[in-house]
């Protein structure tokens, strides 16, 4: 007789053999909780530029699955509280999670505070704290976001936050590929805050559209359908079904050094 009371009433090892623990859920299905180690469905660049009374922000409507152009009608500029726009680069499912989070925050704020809505600066602080907390938990939200809108003094506000919780602000910003291709073009029209404060809305839109064109020419994970938004004191103009205009590869044969030219 087994004198250990814990074993009473259980199948005897000497009769049935030891318990086959392979029936326990193993790592494959119900293993340890998994955290994102790399993004899956991704959006490419977001670009934005401040002007004298607002901000212009744009991103194309493509969500890629690696090199596959998987979803071609994804809106990566999201409205918040009718005051701000968040442009998302990086993982699309994390973008959708953050968008739900922001919508619930908006509803909560609308019910709890009287006559006050969160502006773009408040929103950026919130987002960067969420992102920093998640990186600290080793469970990052794989995005780089641009937040565009107005600050406490109703001045144009534009800032970035990424999956590590790194934040910064500048008169023009671009994520991903745009940081290399579009940012130099945008800095040419608005190198500092003073220059941005002199730009008109039309000039800013023109510069952003031109940058989107350059991105479509040279970023392989981009699309010629894009969203563009202009945020001013008067509200948000968001267009989500724009098409790139006046494209031309006429300049291509002028480029030397890559192709089969002789000289």
């Amino acid at each position, binding site marked *: 007789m087994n004198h250990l009371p814990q*074993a009473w009433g259980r199948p005897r090892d000497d009769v049935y053999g030891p318990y086959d623990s392979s029936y326990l859920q193993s790592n494959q299905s119900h293993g340890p909780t998994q955290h994102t180690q790399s993004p899956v469905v991704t959006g490419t660049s977001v670009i934005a530029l401040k002007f004298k009374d607002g901000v212009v922000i744009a991103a194309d409507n493509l969500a890629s699955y690696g090199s596959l152009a998987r979803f071609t009608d994804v809106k990566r500029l999201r409205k918040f509280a009718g005051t701000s726009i968040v442009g998302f680069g990086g993982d699309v499912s994390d973008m959708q999670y953050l968008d739900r989070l922001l919508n619930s925050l908006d509803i909560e704020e609308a019910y709890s505070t009287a006559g006050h809505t969160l502006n773009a600066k408040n929103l950026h602080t919130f987002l960067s704290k969420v992102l920093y907390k998640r990186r600290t938990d080793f469970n990052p939200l794989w995005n780089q976001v641009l937040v565009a809108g107005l600050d406490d003094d109703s001045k144009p506000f534009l800032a970035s936050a990424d999956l590590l919780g790194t934040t910064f602000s500048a008169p023009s910003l671009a994520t991903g590929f745009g940081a290399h291709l579009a940012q130099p073009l945008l800095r040419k029209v608005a190198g500092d805050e003073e220059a941005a404060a002199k730009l008109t809305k039309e000039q800013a839109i023109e510069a952003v559209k031109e940058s989107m064109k350059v991105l479509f020419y040279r970023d392989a994970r981009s699309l010629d359908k894009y969203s563009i938004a202009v945020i001013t004191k008067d509200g948000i103009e968001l267009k989500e079904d724009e098409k790139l205009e006046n494209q031309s590869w006429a300049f291509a044969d002028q480029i030397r050094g890559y192709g089969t030219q002789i000289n």
Partner: protein
Amino acid sequence: MAAMFSQNPLMNGPNYSFNQAPSTSSGGNKEHAFYPYTDNGGSTLAISGSDFTIIAGDTRSTSGYSINTRFQPKVFKIGGTTSAQDDATLVLSVVGFAADGEALKERLDTIVKMYRYQHGKPMSVKACAQRLSTILYGKRFFPYYVTAILGGLDEEGKGAIYSYDPVGSYEREQCRAAGAAASLIMPFLDNQVNFKNQYMPGSGVGHELQEREKIPLKINEVEDLVKDAFDSAVERHIEVGDGLQMFVITKSGIEVIYKALKKD
């Protein structure tokens, strides 16, 4: 023997088979692809004088070869009573991973403010310095990836600088350079602030050599030293540039001086 009747069976000796380790679990751990740190470049510098302290930092923020922005301060006033921090007496500089720097600054600022509310007096640099060390060491096994420098005036009104490593080792010093260009600036400071390798002309050779007499530097001389140090660092380090912020702490308060640096 009481353990025998416990709900938690003993793990040693004979036991029922449930406690056998799962035999099918695959060996080897999956490596984490996510690295929670980055380097945002930039450099800071602090020099203390007989009745003042200057803490300076450039305003460039980088990721790799890209410039994130030309204006992101890494020097902050700590513990004022308003959000503008006009009446603050302490200054903190953080260089390294900017997100950790921001989090550290926010934590220290909150603590120094709470200290003022609870004790009815501003925190001394000495107390704040010890507290900052404790905060950093509290994250010894997941550190704030920053090099911090804390500055102010001590109880006697003399300039005080405390420098830190990411896990909280700290020391009071005359001067300290930190960040990307620390190795370029620090030797310059040794020579120009502490007069290292400077000797009295004609005082002899070998052990006869007389060191140059150490005299406290004047505030405008230190300001010039800081500007020269950064102009030189900008020339030779790609992560340093765009702008220079100098926080000059005297008994009459903190003055912030901005100077443009080369943007290339």
